[in-house]
C-alpha cells in the first residue's frame, strides 16, 4: 500500500516536471522577456545587461532548474498585463474558480448518480428513455451555448437571476467566498448549472451502463435468489460496485470541469482563473499562461493521486494485494 502510494507520487512528480518543461519552454522561447520588460527602444547594452541579470545566457538545464525552483516557491514572475506578481493574481482568482467547480461537481454527482441508477435498474421504463434522450441533448449542447440560453431565459426574460459576475463576496482571511451572501448564491446558480450539465450527463450515462452490467452479474442474481430487498440489492450491493468506475470518472471529470470552467467563466464574466487564462491567451501574457498550466496540472495530478488512494478504501481486493 505504502509502496504503491510512493510510486504514484514519484510518477506525479515526473508528470509535473514534464509540465514544468512545457511552461518553461513557453517562458523562454515564446515572446522575448527582455523586449517585454524594456520595450523595443532599449539599447543593446541594456538588453545584454538584463539578459545576464535574468540568467538568460545560462545553460538550458540551469535555467530550467531555476524555473522549477522558483515555481515550487510559487514565483512565476510578473504578469505582463497587470505588472503584478502572478502568484498574487492567481490567489485572488482561485476562490471563484474553486467554488464554481466544486458546486458544479456536487450538482453533477447529486443529480447524475440517482438518474443513472434509475436508468440502469429500469432500462425499459419511459422515464429512463427520457433521461437518455435528455442526456444526449446534454452532451450535444456546447457549454457556452447552454450558458447563453440560460442567461436569456433566467436573466433577460424572467429577470430572476443575475446574468454575470459573482455577486457580493465575503472575505474569510484571504479567501473570498460568494457562498455566504444571497446575491452570491443567486449568482453562482446559472454558471454552476451550465458547467455541471455536461458532466452530469456523462456521469449519468456511466452509472447507467455500469448498473446495467452489474445487475447482470452472478452475485446480484444470487442476492436476488436469497430474497434480499430491492433496496439492499440496488443501493447496497450494486451501488458499491459501481463506485469504483464512478470515482475514476468523477476524478477525470474534475479535470474536465476545470477546463470547461474557462468557457463558463467567459460566458458569465466570472472572475476566476479561467477568465484570467483566456485574457492571458489573448494578451500574450506568458507568465500567467505558464502559471495557469502548472497550477491546473497540479490539480489534475493531485486528483488522480486522490482517486488512486480512494480505490483502496472501496475495494478490499486491492487492499490485501498490497499489504
Amino acid at each position, binding site marked *: 500500500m505504502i509502496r504503491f502510494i510512493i510510486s504514484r507520487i514519484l510518477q506525479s512528480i515526473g508528470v509535473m516536471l514534464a509540465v514544468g518543461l512545457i511552461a518553461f519552454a513557453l517562458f523562454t522561447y515564446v515572446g522575448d522577456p527582455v523586449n517585454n520588460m524594456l520595450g523595443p527602444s532599449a539599447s543593446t547594452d541594456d538588453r545584454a545587461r538584463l539578459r545576464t541579470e535574468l540568467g538568460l545566457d545560462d545553460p538550458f538545464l540551469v535555467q530550467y532548474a531555476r524555473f522549477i525552483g522558483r515555481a515550487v516557491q510559487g514565483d512565476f514572475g510578473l504578469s505582463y498585463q497587470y505588472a503584478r506578481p502572478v502568484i498574487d493574481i492567481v490567489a485572488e482568482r482561485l476562490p471563484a474558480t474553486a467554488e464554481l467547480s466544486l458546486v458544479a461537481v456536487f450538482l453533477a454527482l447529486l443529480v447524475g448518480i440517482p438518474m443513472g441508477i434509475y436508468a440502469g435498474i429500469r432500462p425499459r421504463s419511459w422515464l429512463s428513455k427520457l433521461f437518455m434522450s435528455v442526456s444526449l441533448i446534454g452532451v450535444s449542447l456546447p457549454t457556452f451555448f447552454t450558458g447563453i440560453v440560460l442567461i436569456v431565459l433566467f436573466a433577460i426574460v424572467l429577470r430572476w437571476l443575475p446574468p454575470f459576475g459573482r455577486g457580493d463576496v465575503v472575505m474569510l482571511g484571504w479567501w473570498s467566498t460568494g457562498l455566504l451572501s444571497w446575491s452570491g448564491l443567486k449568482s453562482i446558480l446559472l454558471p454552476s448549472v451550465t458547467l455541471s450539465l455536461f458532466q452530469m450527463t456523462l456521469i449519468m450515462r456511466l452509472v447507467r451502463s455500469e448498473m446495467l452490467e452489474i445487475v*447482470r*452479474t*452472478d*452475485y446480484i*442474481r*444470487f*442476492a*436476488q*435468489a*436469497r*430474497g*434480499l*430487498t*430491492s433496496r*439492499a440489492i440496488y443501493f*447496497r*450491493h450494486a451501488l*458499491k*460496485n459501481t463506485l469504483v468506475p464512478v470515482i475514476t470518472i468523477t476524478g477525470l471529470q474534475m479535470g474536465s470541469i476545470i477546463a470547461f470552467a474557462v468557457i463558463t467563466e467567459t460566458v458569465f464574466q466570472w472572475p476566476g482563473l479561467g477568465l484570467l487564462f483566456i485574457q492571458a491567451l489573448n494578451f500574450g501574457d506568458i507568465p500567467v499562461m505558464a502559471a495557469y498550466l502548472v497550477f491546473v496540472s497540479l490539480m489534475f495530478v493531485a486528483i488522480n493521486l486522490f482517486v488512486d488512494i480512494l480505490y483502496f478504501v*472501496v*475495494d*478490499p*481486493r486491492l487492499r*490485501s494485494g498490497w499489504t
Partner: protein
Amino acid sequence: MHDGPILQVENLRIEIPTRHRTLVAVDDVSFELARGEVLGVVGESGAGKSLTGAAIIGLLRPPGRIAGGRIWIDGKRVDNLSQAEMRKVRGRIAGAIFQDPMTSLNPLFTVGQQLVETIRTHLDMSRAEARARALSLLAEVGIPAPEQRLDQYPHQFSGGMRQRVVIALALCANPKLIIADEPTTALDVSIQAQIIALLKRLCHEHGTAVVLVTHDMGVIAETADRVAVMYTGRIAELGPVAEVVRAPRHPYTAGLMASIPAIGETRDRLYQIDGSMPRLTNIPQGCPFNPRCPAVFDRCRRERPETVDLGGHRVACWKHGEQEA
C-alpha cells in the same frame, strides 16, 4: 400449512424471443417434488435444465419468459407473482445455488456482512443474534475457524470454501426447497465430491428438497432420489434414479448411461451418441432425438411422442407409446 408436494411444475413453456423468431427453449415440462426429495435434472447444455431452474425461482434472464404452464411452490402459485411478491418466497421458502462460487459472492462485502444481511432480511433477529447464527451456519457447512473467517472478504476463500459459504447463504432462512444449478461444475474434481456430500447431508438434516441441475450423471446417481432427463427443452424420461440408471427406457438415456464407464470396468472405447443435440433454431420434426436415435422408425420422424407413464416412470418415446396403444 400445505402438505402436498413442495414443488409442482405443470406444462412449463419458456420462450426466448430473438430478432428473427421466438425460440421455444423449454416446452411442456411437468414434474412434482415431494418434501425432502432430491430430483436430479440432467441434460446437455442448451437442454433447458438451467432455464427451468431459473423459472422456478422467478429469475429468468430477459428476454427469456414463461410463456405457458404453472408452477406451485409449497402450494402457492408462483409463476404469475410480481417480483416484489416473489422476493418473499425467495430465500425463505425457496433458495438457489449457482454454478460459479467465484462470482456468486459480492467481492466488496465480507462473508459475515452478506450472511447477517440475508439472515436479518428473513428472520426477526438482532445484529448479534444474526451474527451468532452466521457463525453456526459457517461451522455447519464445514468452514474451519469460522470466527476469523466471518470478517474476511470472498477473495480470501478458495473455490470450495466459497461454495460452502454460498450453501450457508442459501440455508440462512431454512428454505424448504433449493434449486442447485451445477453447484460443482466450476470446482476441482477432488472438491466436487465433498460439496455434493455436504449438500446431501444438510438437505437431509434440514428436510430440504433439492432440484439438482447438472450435466454429470455420476453426481445424480450418487445424490438424487429421482432423475429427469432433458433433451431440447423437453423431458425425455423421468423416474426413480435406480431404475433410470439400471434400465433406461428412452434411447437417449440409454446412450447417456452407456457413455459412463462403470467402476472396475475396462473398455477400449467409451460409447458415444452420434451427432450432437440440435440447436433450438432447428429442432427436427417429430421426436427431436430421431436423427441420432439408434431405434428410430417412421413415426418418430412424423409425430412428436406423447409422454407415457409406466408406473411412476415417464418416457416420451414412441417405442413405449406403441406398447400402450
